């Protein structure tokens, strides 16, 4: 267990509850002083360095590796290849559950994508291992690779995303389109994108007999642990994983991928601790990405701008050896009240690493297409894009007919539009200029993301000194779990945050589920909340059952926990401290466990989503076509806000990512070889500071009694949705050019001047 000295700034001394306070990050000082230990910062005595050699072809077979040359290089200790490796307990090709993805653990000579691991060189130094990998000089038998959205035969996958139906129907779409006064039929394309977390995937691993100690960033401690256990045939309790900090994950560190498994194998092979860190370019293959899509939207509207039909079809890709299908069309299920909706998907297989969840998987890709199409439709109807969206506001979830558990989207539209000054927008495109003569455009998009819950468990304790402990194997990916979950923990046990020892980030703690689906705060928070309630109930039992206590006879329902004391609900002057209760009872501590889980009954009855409205202003040089976002306002309703500061950062990050989606991000794939030609942060563009304008985030009050006990919806991913479309729509409004292939590029806008 790493020693973490979490602090909170004294400037935020609070009165009353912890939830809702804008605490600064409790791990902030550790991070800015370089004391936060990320996986690759660990250095063990006797440790060797492992470097992965990756395939330069996308399809074929490795026919030779010059292991002799690599081993001759000074410092190289061993070279792990398909012919020389420790045996795994099960074939990594076997999918033992739906959250297991196939990985490359040197099980064969086959090459299925470019940048696939084909060998591991182990050496005394990083430099020697790196050179050893070069000296392997692999030779291949190459086969033609499948590349792009038109590769091979298309097929309809059995499911998309995580078990979503491939197709959904409501009403008669063709009839709706036929009866429509206005119709649009537009096709949008989104490129492959890579997570590109700042922190590369890394593992530091040590075997001690059959015990395994691992430092590795993961968004799913227990899932990773289970995968390691089955791959290496060891019991769960023999494995200890530490993941106190992640330098971003975005979905790429959710499930166990091949590279860390190779690190564990290497350590077994040489019997020494190993450090294995991916190079940036090696992250473009074995650790997931967002698949490209081509989406066709056909929309009909009547004479008053009311939707008559919405047909959203998405083509995507998966790898040749596993299945993950970006559920892009599902974005059309929840937002707009069309009487007829059809969503469908098909796919082709290409020689790529298997695509995976990437921040707002499906929602992000689907949203930019849907929001663009809605904008096109509004224009076709001669309506303001906000008025059009309001006209088609969904009072119940369109695809299911279920009422929303809560939906403050109308307030988001109103507050966002007011802050932005949307009312002054010209209906027509290419009407606005700034003082410097640049074209100015305003666009908007609706944001939405499901409010999900997974399963989690937490353990709470109250100690004799009156302090509390909350334990949960939760994950801080930079989103602020160390802070926000500790706030929930403090309220759960009725203590100030500095009196609660909050433990997270290791696999020996109770399972917090996965930090994904924007559900971590809600899920882990619910577990913490219930563990806290349970431990307080035990404490209350001690007190109310003891005639020496001023709380004697108050009964469980009759006490409340506040500031380290239990007090009578009916008479707040009567109470006693936790320490007094435990001292009298003669116990060192009381402890209890609690769980967080989705509520199937509520899910059956309600549609649960967070919502938002994003407004963007762009400037475009009228002759040169260069684009810059100059202003963005996002108003979001996401249930209870645990920490407004963290939430604002999440929403800022999402909005910037949305802008990035519309204008920058793209993995450029060579159409002949399937190799990615810009696998570095110099050329794979994300926005830099100069691209990011003043951002304005409004969180709209929303009380949701159904999503979970705390009323929390997620905020991790929603910021991308809506934002990407808002920027794209603003580019149209600035220029009059509708670009349907993303990211929008300079040459797309050079047609006019």
């Amino acid at each position, binding site marked *: 267990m790493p020693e973490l000295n979490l602090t909170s700034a004294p400037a935020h001394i609070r009165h009353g509850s912890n939830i809702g306070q804008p605490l600064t990050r409790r791990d902030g000082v550790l991070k800015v002083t370089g004391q936060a230990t990320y996986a690759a910062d660990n250095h063990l005595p006797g440790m060797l360095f492992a470097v992965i050699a990756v395939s*330069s072809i996308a399809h074929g077979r490795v026919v030779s590796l010059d292991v002799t040359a690599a081993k001759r290089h000074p410092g190289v200790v061993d070279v792990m290849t398909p012919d020389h490796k420790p045996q795994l307990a099960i074939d990594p090709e076997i999918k033992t559950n739906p959250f297991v993805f196939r990985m490359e653990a040197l099980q064969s000579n086959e090459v299925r994508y470019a940048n696939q691991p084909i060998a591991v060189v182990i050496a005394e130094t990083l430099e020697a291992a790196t*050179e050893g990998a*070069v000296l392997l000089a692999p030779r291949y038998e190459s086969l033609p690779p499948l590349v792009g959205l038109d590769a091979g035969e298309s097929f309809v996958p059995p499911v998309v995303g995580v078990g979503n139906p491939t197709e959904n129907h409501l009403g008669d779409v063709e009839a709706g389109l036929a009866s429509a006064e206005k119709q649009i039929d537009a096709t949008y394309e989104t490129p492959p994108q890579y997570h590109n977390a700042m922190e590369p995937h890394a593992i530091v691993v040590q075997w001690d007999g059959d015990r395994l100690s691992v430092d590795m960033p993961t968004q799913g401690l227990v899932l990773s642990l289970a995968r390691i256990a089955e791959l290496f045939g060891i019991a769960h309790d023999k494995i200890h994983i530490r993941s106190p900090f992640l330098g971003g994950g975005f979905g790429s560190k959710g499930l166990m991928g091949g590279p860390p498994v190779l690190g564990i194998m290497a350590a077994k092979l040489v019997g020494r601790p190993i450090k294995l860190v991916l190079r940036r370019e090696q992250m473009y293959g074995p650790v997931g990405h967002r698949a490209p899509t081509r989406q066709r939207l056909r929309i009909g509207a009547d004479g008053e701008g009311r939707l008559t039909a919405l047909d959203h079809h998405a083509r995507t890709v998966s790898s040749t050896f596993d299945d993950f299908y970006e559920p892009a069309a599902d974005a059309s299920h929840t937002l707009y009240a069309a009487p007829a909706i059809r969503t469908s998907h098909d796919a082709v297989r290409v020689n790529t690493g298997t695509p995976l969840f990437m921040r707002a998987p499906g929602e992000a890709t689907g949203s930019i297409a849907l929001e663009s199409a809605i904008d096109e439709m509004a224009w076709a109807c001669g309506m303001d894009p906000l008025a059009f969206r309001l006209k088609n506001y969904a009072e119940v979830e369109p695809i299911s007919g279920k009422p929303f558990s809560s939906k403050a989207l109308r307030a988001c539209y109103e507050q966002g539009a007011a802050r932005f000054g949307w009312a002054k927008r010209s209906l027509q495109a290419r009407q606005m200029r700034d003082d*410097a003569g640049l074209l100015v455009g305003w666009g908007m998009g609706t944001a939405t993301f499901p409010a999900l819950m997974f399963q989690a468990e937490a353990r709470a304790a109250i100690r004799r000194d009156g302090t509390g402990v909350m334990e949960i194997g939760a994950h801080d990916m930079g989103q602020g779990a160390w802070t926000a979950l500790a706030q929930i923990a403090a309220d759960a046990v009725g203590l100030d945050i500095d009196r609660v020892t909050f433990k997270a980030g290791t696999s020996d703690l109770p399972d917090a589920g996965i930090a994904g689906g924007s559900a971590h705060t809600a899920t882990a928070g619910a577990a913490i909340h219930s563990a806290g309630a349970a431990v307080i109930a035990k404490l209350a039992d001690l007190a109310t059952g003891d005639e020496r206590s001023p709380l004697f006879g108050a009964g469980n329902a009759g006490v409340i926990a506040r500031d380290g004391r239990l007090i009578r609900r009916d008479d707040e002057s009567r109470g006693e401290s936790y320490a007094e209760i435990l001292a009298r009872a003669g116990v060192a501590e009381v402890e209890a466990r609690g769980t967080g889980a989705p509520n199937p009954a509520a899910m059956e009855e309600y549609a649960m989503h967070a919502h938002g409205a994003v407004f963007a202003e762009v400037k475009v*040089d009228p002759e040169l076509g*260069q684009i810059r976002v100059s202003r963005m306002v996002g108003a979001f309703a996401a249930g209870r806000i645990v920490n407004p500061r963290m939430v604002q950062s999440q929403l800022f990050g999402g909005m910037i990512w949305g802008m990035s989606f519309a204008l920058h991000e793209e993995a450029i794939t*060579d159409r002949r*070889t399937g190799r990615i030609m810009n696998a570095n942060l110099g050329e794979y563009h994300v926005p*830099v500071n100069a691209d990011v304008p003043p951002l304005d985030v409004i969180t709209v009050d929303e009380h949701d009694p159904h999503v979970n006990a705390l009323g929390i919806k997620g905020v991790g991913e929603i910021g991308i949705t809506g934002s990407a479309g808002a920027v794209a729509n603003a580019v149209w409004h600035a220029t009059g050019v509708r670009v349907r292939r993303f990211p929008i590029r*300079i040459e797309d806008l050079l047609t006019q001047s």
Partner: protein
Amino acid sequence: MKQFDYVRPATVAEAVAAAVQPGAAYLAAGTNLLDLMKGGVSRPDRLVDVTHLDGLDAIETLADGSLRIGALVSNADLAHDPVFARSYPAVAEALLSGASAQLRNAATVGGNLLQRTRCAYFYDTASRCNKREAGSGCDARDGENRGHAVLGWSDSCIATHPSDFCVPLVALDAVVEIEGKSGRREIALDELHCLPGNSPERESALEPGDIVVAVRLPPAARGFAAHARYLKVRDRTSYAFAVVSAAAALRIENGKVAEARIALGGVAAKPWRVRAAEDVLRGVAPTADAFQEAAWRALTDAKPSGDNAFKIELARRIVMRALTLAAAGTPARLPALPASPFAATSGAIHA
């Protein structure tokens, strides 16, 4: 990483002696070279570190009014030198539009001149590249080549030279001082970089052992200070190479263009001076029509080398705009977003 010798010569003569051997490379700040080494693109046997050589880090005005910039002056120090920025504003603007603040703090004048192309196939050792390995072929030719050359390319190589700094320098007739095994010589910057022809592996006029010791701007270069701009169109607001860029410098006398200088960046294997376009402007009033004519003339020889026809039209528009901006006069202060189309409206956000 491949093992290599590292030598740190004390004098230029020692440096030349150390670098003349096959497999040697000069190391300046390493912002380009070390990346190339890590990727296995350059595999030198010996690095000759020039950063400790004396006397190469000065900016001096010579008796004849020319300015001499030592090869080790950092990109940032040069751009922020007040006299330099006032006298050669387009050069300062170009420098500050390049890379990032961190890179500019490290990168040297010599290294900037001799930085290698950013062609992705050159960087990708699994691809065929005539420049990296003579005679192996050019995978960019039918590949992802949106950013490649539209001028001066050949079938063996369509790469561009990525430097911003070089573009206004070549417009201002900069001269490069070189020390080699047979002593000191100087050549026009315009002669430093080679067009690919049939031997794209030969990138510059430097011979083995040749070290750039300084860059000189002739006295006449100051004459353009009142009307000189650099304009760089890129895929994001900062920290991106030029899609296309242009330097425009005018000497305006009595309402007429006495002399014009125009060069393009991101379009060819060298900074592309367009003398024919300059000639169009000599002696005429600085009007939109004249600029339009010059812009057309500047691109008459251009042809796409792939998916990049748009760069030709873009280059025309950039020349037109750069001339217009130059005619309007050099701004009193360098914009917060140097060389950006958004320079005029950038507010407080710096590149």
